[in-house]
């Protein structure tokens, strides 16, 4: 699938039985192809839409059942990773995104998407009545370098709809990371509230924290459990052959943990449903 515009597609897709996923693309976004593939493998119809078009036609967002903010280096990560795209979203389409969440639309934001989501105030999101604000950050890795490797992660009990199936698994599993600014940072107060409200969805395993994150936080969700941001790349782990050790694994029949996340969100949409605007 290329980034070509698909003028009629969202509307047509909305008619079909498969849930539709909006994949945001923009200058420097570069993990959109694999995110599209992950949603498609999970039974959704994924449509990449460029930011310029979304700003022109924000109402288009109302037609989708799922949303993906892909990874990459949006606008070159100038100033700080995800900062400029977050400013663009806040300035132009944030209300439509919030409305989508209110409709029950699950949203996944890996890597750069996570960096964008926290700066746009989508994560950790509102606390009760208090309006959402920027209260977390993803800072330069402790090592001061970009790192690409696979890390052990845990899925604590949380309200995140994307990791429901994985929380019971208990044992640490692997996910790929590839980032230079992934060190999760928040105030003691925010950290406590995240814990108390079950919003910490992914943690790096003890001794396998690649960036020095507070509380080994690798991913969090908002109060609805719908919006899920994480530094690892589940969309790069939808086939067992993407696992770094697959040549020594026995034949695997079930879905990879990465693909399970997308299945969970698609299933959530199909059962709980997404209300029309």
């Amino acid at each position: 699938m290329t980034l070509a515009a698909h003028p009629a597609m969202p509307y047509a897709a909305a008619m079909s039985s498969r849930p539709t996923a909006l994949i945001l693309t923009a200058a420097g976004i570069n993990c959109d192809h694999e995110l599209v593939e992950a949603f498609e493998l999970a039974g959704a119809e994924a449509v990449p839409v460029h930011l310029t078009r979304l700003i022109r036609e924000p109402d288009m967002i109302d037609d989708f059942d799922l949303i993906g903010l892909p990874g990459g280096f949006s606008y070159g990560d100038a100033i700080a990773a995800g900062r400029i795209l977050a400013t663009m979203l806040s300035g132009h389409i944030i209300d439509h995104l919030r409305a989508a969440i209110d409709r029950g639309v699950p949203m996944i934001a890996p890597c750069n998407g996570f960096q964008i989501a926290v700066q746009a105030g989508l994560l950790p999101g509102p606390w009760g009545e208090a309006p959402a604000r920027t209260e977390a950050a993803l800072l330069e890795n402790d090592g001061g370098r970009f790192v690409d490797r696979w890390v052990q992660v845990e899925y604590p009990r949380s309200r995140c709809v994307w990791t429901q199936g994985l929380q019971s698994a208990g044992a640490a599993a692997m996910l790929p990371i590839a980032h230079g600014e992934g060190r999760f940072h928040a105030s003691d107060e925010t950290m406590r509230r995240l814990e108390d409200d079950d919003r910490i969805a992914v943690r790096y395993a003890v001794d396998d924290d690649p960036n020095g994150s507070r509380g080994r936080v690798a991913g969090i969700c908002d109060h609805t459990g719908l919006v899920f941001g994480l530094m690892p790349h589940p969309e790069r782990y939808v086939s067992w052959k993407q696992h770094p050790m697959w040549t020594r694994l026995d034949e695997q029949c079930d879905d990879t943990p990465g693909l399970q996340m997308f299945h969970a969100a698609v299933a959530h949409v199909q059962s709980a449903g997404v209300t029309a605007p």
Partner: protein
Amino acid sequence: MSLHRVEVRPRAESGDPRGRAALAAIKSSGQFPCPSRVDTASVYLIEGDFDDTLVQQIADALLSHPVTDEAVIGSSSPRSEALIEVHPLPGVMDPDADAVEVAIESMTGKTVKVRTGCRYDMHGIDEDAGVRIASSCLANPLIHDVHRGPEHPDTFPIGHAHDMSVHEVPMIDLDDADLTTLSRDTHLFLSLDEMRAVQAHFRGRGSEPRDIELETLAQTWSEHCVHKTLKATVEYQGDLPVGKSIPDSERLPDGRLRINNLLKSTVAAATHQLMDEGLSSWCLSVFVDNAGIVGFDEDHAVCFKVETHNHPSALEPYGGAATGIGGCIRDIIGTGLAAQPIAATDVFCVAPLETETVPEGCLSPRRILSQVVRGVRDYGNRVGIPTVDGTVWFDAGYIGNPLVFCGCVGVMPRDRTHGDPQAGDHIIVMGGRTGRDGIHGATFSSAELTDTHADEFSHAVQIGNPITEKKTLDAIMAARDHEDGCLYSAITDCGAGGFSSAVGEMGEHLGADVHLDRAPLKYEGLTPTEIWISEAQERMVLAVSPERIKALVAVCAEHEVEWCDLGVFGTPDRELVLHYAGEEIGRLSMDFMHGGVPDRVREATWTSTEPEPAGTREPDIAVTLHALLAHPNIASKQDIVQQYDHEVQGRTMVKPFVGPSGIGPGDAAVMTPVRGSDRGLAIGTGLATGWCEDPYLMVLAALDECVRNLVCVGADPGRIAVLDNYCWPGCENPERMGQLVRASLGCYHGGLAYRTPFISGKDSLNNQFTTDTGETIRIPPTLLISGFGIVGDISRCLTMDAKSAGNMLVLVGDTTAAVGGSHLVRIASDSPGSRELPVTDLQAGPATAKAVALALAGGIVRSAHDPSEGGALLAAAEMAFAGEIGLVIDAEAMRGDHESLAVACFAETPSRYLLEVDPSDIPALEKTLGDIRYSVIGRFQSEPRVTMGDVLNSSLDELRASWQSGLTI
């Protein structure tokens, strides 16, 4: 209009990794009083029609993070005696500033100009020391200004208008001496013969050349663009490989061999012979396009190109390497009707990192390597191309002239592999703006470096903007796969020579009518000639029929990509006609541009050198093994590779590092170019610079190594295509020309023997550095073989990490006693073994590759690894610690019929494989190998040690530690 300054620094609790990195860089340079601490802040200079409240708003909402940063309007008070700032020079690409401009304009609706910089408060040193440190550790004077104190000008410098008038260059009446001077002083770098040809042409025309005409010829005729040397006729004196033919050559009366067009008679000849023998349906495009193309599956083709960017990387390693990979990615986008880049490779050759004395005009090897890695990382990662394969080679000869090879692989639909511009098509340029940066890159890269080049050629150095490239790539993919069909009839990239080469090549058979004043500029003041030859990055040239321009423009708008209409392809007399502001400023016939280069006859001689006598002292096996594991050529490159995103796009099925803890050195990477398909593409390299004593054997070994790397992960040896990248220490003298002939013959005979067509290549022949004292430092002759091969089904892929205790370790192939050029001799010069270079057996090598591939496909091999640098024992140890499984080696089986055990362990004989096999599968393996020699040399064990009789007993942790200690950057 006013110019505001905003300073953003991390709050104390957020930490300052940039400050720590700066401190580390200063420490590692070891030549300065080290500050006790370095605090950094980002500086934004914003020129626009704003009041302070708006600036405050921008600072709070855009430039700083409420939780982690503090922003100051203006400048905060000094925190130390040494307050130094580093800012890019005016005109130097500043990608962050471009992005900030976009953001501010979207926020405020006002247009702004932004520049960025970095503030360093260095504690515990004085300002002068701070300036010296900044200038040599934190900045490069070629692209940066170093300021004392906060930089806050009243306004940005603006480009001042140049004299736009066109000059005639009097040359018709010049004598040879003056022609030579003219060529050098105006950086044409044309030989006297070529200057004479140019002179004759303009005498014929009856008027002096205009400067832009002369420049166009210099660009088009540069070594970089036409490979004059490799295409020359060669008269070769010296031994020839026994029993091997050379096409299109004849014996001269005096016994010398005359080879017409060296490249055509060797590298290309192998390919065309193989195509005649059945590979023609697989090789879809060879040597003609920006990359070579072969078939992948029924609907798709894959292409591969490897470029070098040596000279720019010598002067400004970060920008040089970044624009190197950027240019190679554009080659792939500019292949056929555009391919999607899916993987990148990189190979670096630098001087040993501990080198202490560095000649005037050179950067330290450590700085070059770390900056080159950063450059590839920042550009490749941002464009989203996984860097999946590469290596680093160290040799003192690279001190003044490091080598930076950047490769890129792409995938495309089979119906998009060829493009042809049509008469009447418009010349559409997409992507970056044109600036003064990168002028004379093509001619510069064809010249030798001297200690004054940093000053003379600073304009050839540039910084890229990967996001511009990514946007352009996205737009071009959308235009290629447009619902109305491909929106253009041909595409190429703007590389060396800029517009002059791109338009000149596309218009070769049509002519082109060009209006240079239509090109969008980064800043005012460029002369028409500068616009024409600027090598500013991230520009693609497309041929678009008039009725499709509208649709293309819409695609550009959606992807925020700038474009311009430079003119039209097709003129009555197939001429290149250049206009500026309505006035004709240049006119050349395409025939003379592309056919006027005088043929050259080059002398080449070769005398084989007598090998040194063998040493006599048998080295300690364990000590030697650990020393070899830690040799920088062999040691783990994890420090480098982990900085590359080698998994973006989610196609990397066999990754650079393998095994349970992800530290094993994979032989090659395997990608899945087509989503949803299990058909794979293995990507690997071979380099045997250590054997440059005889470039013929060097090339055969490199090719053999490349094939082994690909076969070890599961590639079909019958479907491997390769690329040649020559980097030579100059070719003016007959001996070095003779080495070039030997290497080319290696490509010919090797390519035929292994049935691996060469599909693309590149040469960089003037890699030598002349110091201020007049000494010339030459690189060793270097020829990189890059290859990719089809993997029928990736579920058959293997990795090199040992899989289970109880399995046998089998060494396939013969080990000879020749250890010339080996790493054993490098670290233990008095060890036994003949100093002859190992000879690649052109019968056994391909046969073994085929048999091993059969064994892998038959599923009787659990892991496979190729013993090359360091030899069989070292490769066996790698398999063990990569798999976290112990290994007992049978010393006598390892020794075979060798007198010296060390020779048997560490010889680098080509065409050998190490295979892990279940004992019950040994008979099946023997059957598959037929008459190919093999021996069972060990058995994997659960105890985590590698032992061999009483000469080796090391824990896996010890071996791994040695291997991981050898190279840190």
